[in-house]
């Protein structure tokens, strides 16, 4: 019998305190690309030290422990209500342990919801798979980064973006430029081309779960990812918007169909504290790390 509360509580603890190795490696690479003793090198080294400290202490990487979004892939007939309840219990337990800050406000009364659990909090998405194990991903996204996510509707005359991949590229560079000074760079872009507005944000967010070295299967999107990453880093915005060679650690793009009348480009921006972890839980309840 799978103990989902324990498994998910552990997943929250790891996600909040243990930055994925690929992100840590990317920060180290970025630091070594900067001149020794420069302000950008100092900022990146401080992020690296913070990452090591948080992992060693099991304490939050960032004080904004963010919105928690769980993505579950479950076998046919799986009890998703039980999973959602387990996720809520896990979030309350992680909050009580100090792994999550009291970070949830009732939008009408302005009051704090001290255990971070409410209708729709944490956010849970379910998809059915054809396997007999359960795959779970958790994304923790802070407010400063979520505030920088945006959606463009093409054509956009303000940035000269038409309804083609070059128009998409312009949107992405504009989004990176507007994020400077906010959203704690260097970060990652998750992008969805097409879809309706709501689906665009969901799919863009899911792109943030891809490993940093993952390249799109679609050659056109692979080229777009590569080009936008290089061009964004040539803007010189740098860590914390204080100048430097690394503004983005990755760009991950997917596409969906669209209506003839709409052409949305949706950008989910994630800061350096790109907290996401995945596990695969077999029928015996044994979790296996997916990062």
């Amino acid at each position, binding site marked *: 019998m799978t103990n989902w509360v324990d498994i998910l509580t552990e997943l929250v603890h790891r996600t909040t305190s243990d930055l994925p190795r690929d992100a840590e490696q990317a920060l180290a690479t970025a630091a070594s690309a900067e*001149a*020794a*003793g*420069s*302000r950008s090198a*100092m*900022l990146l080294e*401080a*992020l690296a*030290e*913070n990452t090591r*400290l*948080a992992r060693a*202490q099991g*304490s*939050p*990487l*960032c*004080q*904004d422990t963010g919105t928690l979004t769980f993505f579950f892939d479950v076998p046919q007939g799986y009890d998703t209500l039980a999973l959602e309840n387990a996720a809520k219990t896990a979030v309350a337990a992680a909050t009580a342990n*100090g792994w999550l*800050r009291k970070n949830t406000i009732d939008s009408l009364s302005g009051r704090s919801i001290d255990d971070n659990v409410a209708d729709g909090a944490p956010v849970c998405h379910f998809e059915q798979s054809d396997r007999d194990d359960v795959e779970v991903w958790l994304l923790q996204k*802070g407010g*400063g980064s979520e505030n920088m996510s945006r959606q463009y509707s093409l054509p956009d005359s303000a*940035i*000269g*973006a038409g309804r083609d991949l070059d128009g998409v*590229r*312009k949107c992405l*560079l*504009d989004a990176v*430029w507007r994020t*400077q*000074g*906010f959203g*704690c760079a260097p970060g990652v872009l998750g992008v969805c081309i097409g879809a309706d507005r709501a689906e665009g944000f969901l799919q863009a967010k899911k792109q943030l779960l891809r490993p940093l070295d993952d390249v799109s299967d679609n050659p056109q999107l692979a080229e777009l990812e590569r080009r936008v990453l290089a*061009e964004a880093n*040539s*803007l*010189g*915005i*740098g860590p*914390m*918007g*204080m*100048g430097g060679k690394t503004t983005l650690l990755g760009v991950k793009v997917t596409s969906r169909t669209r209506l003839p009348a709409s052409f949305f480009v949706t950008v989910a921006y994630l*800061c*350096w*504290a790109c907290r996401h972890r995945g596990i695969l839980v077999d029928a015996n309840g044994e979790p296996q790390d997916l990062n």
Partner: protein
Amino acid sequence: MSVMKELFYPFSEAAVKALRAGDTVRISGLVYTGRDRLHKHLAEGGKCPVQLRDGAIFHCGPVTVRDGDGWRVAAAGPTTSIREEPYMASIIGKYGVRVVIGKGGMGKQTLAACREFGCVYLQAVGGAAALLAKRIRRVDGVDFLDEFGATEALWHLTLDGLETVVGMDAHGNSVYDEVRRDSEQRLRELIG
């Protein structure tokens, strides 16, 4: 290779004026936290329970826990400073604040006040909660805890070598303006 400068409380006008935009600085000693509630309170002429002259205001809402008779910081991070732009310049002028610590930089009025009154704005490392908690050596006290709540309260913190970058100096220079200008020019080249 540039060397990190050191800044100690009390922050003298001369020490602050010696800093240039872009310098890396370790700051140590007493600082006071303040967010929206405190800035609004001070700018509207409310009473100030501490001596801000030659002191520092840190835009930060620490997560604190009771520790015996005192407090301990569990996590902390700089908060976005631009929200205090309507108040900052008058507070710097009226109270003689020498150092503002936060993230993201501030606007024209604050930059002008930094030059007029001899104050610097220091960028802390955004989101580095574990590191910042380690650099806060102790909590020396708190004001407005009941009135403003724990996040917005005026905490007295003693820092121990917190890593920062001079974002805005006392001579009218702003790294943020510089980076914005240069990156905008590059953006125009890339998107036409």
